[in-house]
């Protein structure tokens, strides 16, 4: 019953996770953020960003390690570590949550062209002949003309493994 109240039903959905706009570049390895759990008005933007957008950020960047530094420093900050060892430091003092999101997407996010190219590459990888639990088609019996699953309709003896390879010894 408490799940129906407040922000929890909003934040705990796949639809909400997919709404995230920040897709970090491939060379960002670690992203850390310093915020306060009881913020002053200048620090509340970072706190709101962590509350609302942290899960979205991790969902869209599964290979980036996200680290929180709660109540550690005075000024809220965000710091990204790149592949070659460089750091990108953001001062988030006095910023709103939407401004932080735009700043991250603008500075460290992928451009629209890169996103489109990656989307097209992922489309090109699809093969309609594949089937299995990780593909669009779960089972071969979905194809028209194929034999249904043997749980539904018994298969003739000549195509069963028991007959073909075990010679019906059991």
């Amino acid at each position, binding site marked *: 019953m408490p799940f129906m109240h407040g922000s929890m039903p909003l934040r705990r959905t796949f639809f909400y996770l997919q709404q995230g706009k920040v897709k970090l570049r491939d060379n960002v390895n670690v992203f850390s953020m310093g915020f306060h759990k009881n913020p002053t008005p200048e620090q509340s933007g970072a706190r709101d960003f962590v509350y609302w957008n942290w899960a979205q950020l991790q969902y869209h960047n599964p290979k980036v*390690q996200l680290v929180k530094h709660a109540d550690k420093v005075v000024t809220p900050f965000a710091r990204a570590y790149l592949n070659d060892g460089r750091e990108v430091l953001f001062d988030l003092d006095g910023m709103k949550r939407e401004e932080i999101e735009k700043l991250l997407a603008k500075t460290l996010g992928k451009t629209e062209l890169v996103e489109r190219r990656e989307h097209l590459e992922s489309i090109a990888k699809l093969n309609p002949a594949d089937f299995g639990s990780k593909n669009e088609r779960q089972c071969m019996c979905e194809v028209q003309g194929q034999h249904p699953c043997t749980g539904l309709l018994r298969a003739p003896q000549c195509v069963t493994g028991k007959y073909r390879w075990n010679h019906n010894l059991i």
Partner: protein
Amino acid sequence: MPKTSVWKTRVGTQILMGKITDITQIGIDRIPCAQVRCQMNEFNIYLKKYFARSFDFWALDKTSLGNIGDTVLIKQIDGSSRPKANVSHAVDRVVFKFGNIVDPVTGRKIFNDTFADEIDLKKVLVEEVVDKPLEEESMLFEERRALQIRRLEQEKEANV
């Protein structure tokens, strides 16, 4: 239905940030090594929530950069330069020193969620800012406090 509701983390281990939990020496040369505890988020598909899970990595620390409690950045090293099979990383830099937190934005030292130089300034100015308003006995506490705060702000602006 999977056996568990947790999606395993897919965070790459090339560069990681973690906290040093143990320091030891390995081998005949007694090379210093640090055990670094790195937190990664794992997704629970039932609750649709990320939970932080810690993984321990051993990292080379040839120059003894870090101490126990420091937050460090570790980098993966290739197999030929590993002194031991389970030491897979090397300490690259110290991000936050334990007991000596420095604000990365302003570069000022932090003590108990306050800048250390502000505490020093208050200590120096305690006689001028706090004691003088006490001489005027008719003021209430709030007025006295407001006067003290105003004087402290003036001294701060004068010092900058």
